[in-house]
């Protein structure tokens, strides 16, 4: 009896062949992304050795820190088969609301200001995440539309609150984003820690398991008794919370709440996730890929600036990277047996 189906599910055929580990390395998207990252880094350094200087690396890390949390939240969302267009607008709005709150708190001393400010930014992000969930589950909007609505609302509210000019100047905050440990500032280190923990949760926890399972087959997940709505609510709240924290980081970096700080950054975050190898229809994503995607996007935009290429070209570069990543993915998939 146990023989009956035993050949049906057999081990993958090419295990242990001498050349197979090399082939697997080339087929490994993370490894390829790392190679691409090193190549781009070498290219810019070869062009202008300033690119490899300590101060430029520090700048790159700061840029990376303003992007990576948005991309991390987006990775969870995209893994469920959704999309969150509101993360950029949320980060801007959170920064503005936080800046106004912190201006009022100024008499209480720096640590109260920053502590409460961080909580306010987090709260704004969580609130927008909850609104996204309500729009999807009760107003029955698809994620694209729900988060488009909150993106517009958040960006508009930022302008309404500020009249379009930066608010709550606090140039003392800027010093916090300066390097303290090697090339890293304290907020950089917190952001990197959050990213690592998020990666562990996405790939090794029950929360991450359901995130992928919902993106793969939400009917199957519901059938085994998982509350899919509740899980999706948590995912969008997480994305909003990380966008709120990004708003706080941008505030510290600029020394004020800038209403248009996050405009358009959702697309860069989505680009990082796609370059990282995630499937936009859900079920498949790698947080390490997202991080590498964010690293590549960061050095490309700063490298172009150092090369004196017009910053307007940056968007074209992002578009080209997305096209390359998507093509690579399609080719890899085409070489597999399934689908």
């Amino acid at each position, binding site marked *: *009896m146990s023989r*009956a189906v035993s050949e049906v599910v057999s*081990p993958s055929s090419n295990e242990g062949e001498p050349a197979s580990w090399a082939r697997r390395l080339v087929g490994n998207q993370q490894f390829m992304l790392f190679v691409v990252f090193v190549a781009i880094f070498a290219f810019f350094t070869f062009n202008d050795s300033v690119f490899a200087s300590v101060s430029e690396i520090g700048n790159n890390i700061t840029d990376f820190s303003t992007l990576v949390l948005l991309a991390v939240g987006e990775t969870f969302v995209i893994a469920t088969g959704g999309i969150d267009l509101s993360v950029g607008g949320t980060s801007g709005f959170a920064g503005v609301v936080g800046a106004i709150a912190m201006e009022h708190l100024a008499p209480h001393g720096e640590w109260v200001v920053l502590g409460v400010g961080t909580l306010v930014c987090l709260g704004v992000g969580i609130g927008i995440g909850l609104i996204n969930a309500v729009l999807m589950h009760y107003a029955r909007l698809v994620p694209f539309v729900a988060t488009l609505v909150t993106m517009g609302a958040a960006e508009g509210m930022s302008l309404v609150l500020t009249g379009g000019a930066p608010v709550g100047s606090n140039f003392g905050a800027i010093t916090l984003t300066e390097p303290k440990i090697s090339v890293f500032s304290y907020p950089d280190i917190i952001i990197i820690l959050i990213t690592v923990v998020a990666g562990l949760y996405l790939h090794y*926890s029950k929360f991450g398991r359901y995130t992928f*399972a919902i993106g793969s087959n939400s009917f199957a997940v519901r059938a085994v*008794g998982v509350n899919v709505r509740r899980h999706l609510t948590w995912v969008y709240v997480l994305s909003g919370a990380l966008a709120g924290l990004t708003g706080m980081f941008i505030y510290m970096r600029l020394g004020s709440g800038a209403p248009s700080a996050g405009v358009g950054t959702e697309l860069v975050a989505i680009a990082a996730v796609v370059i990282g190898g995630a499937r936009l229809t859900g079920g498949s994503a790698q947080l390490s890929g997202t991080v590498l995607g964010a690293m590549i996007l960061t050095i490309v935009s700063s490298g172009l600036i150092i090369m004196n290429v017009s910053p307007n070209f940056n968007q074209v570069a992002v578009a080209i990277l997305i096209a390359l990543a998507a093509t690579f993915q399609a080719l890899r998939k085409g070489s597999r047996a399934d689908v």
Partner: protein
Amino acid sequence: MSDPTPLYEARNVYKNYGSVAAVKDVSLTIHAGEIVGLVGDNGAGKSSLVKVLSGVYQPDAGQLIVDGVERHWKSPHDAMLAGVETLYQDSGLALDLTIGANVFLGREKMKPGILGRLGFLAQKEMDAEAAEDLERTGIAVHASKRTVGQLSGGQRQAVAIGRAVAWAQKVIILDEPTNHLGARQAGEVLAVMRAARERGLGVIFISHTLPHILEICDRIVVLRLGSVVRDAPTSTFTAESLLGTITGLHAE
């Protein structure tokens, strides 16, 4: 049947979709170690009856009784907890997850201690147990790291059935599990059902492939237009009489 208390019993069950009466006054029993074939033309009400038995729908009238106790399923999960596993016509696997992750979907094992309380999975343990569970049902899984999407259609079906059999405490309901399978793979699915019967499970097997029904079932229940028209041991049917009963073209 010899056992006085059936594992699962439906008594005078009705299920309507608006004005369409899909299931009409159906009574059915499944005993331990028994494979019951459920057959009928397209639209006879087989899938509707399955969905009532598995908790997807609540019956409009009638009783569902497990081990002599009346139950009211609020969801398929309720029925699962009571030991009734169902393989739906369109498979309920998450193709991007590994075999082990699919077998344990919704019933994940957590790491011991603080890591488990923080939400981390005991993946190695689940992979090993999934392989054992599937092997016990007649399916050997060597490559638990592979996603189900990387398997062929027959292999996927084997995993889906293996999962259902592994978790079923009492009854397993299989709605057309051999559809789209080649002859050899279908034979393997039948073997899995026999293994489940040997383990003392009750099996409800729905299929349009009458030779399979005649080969493996202990008893056959024929549905026509939502009602049971015959419920009798397989030995009382011939291929011709079974077909005639299903279509209603000759008297049984």
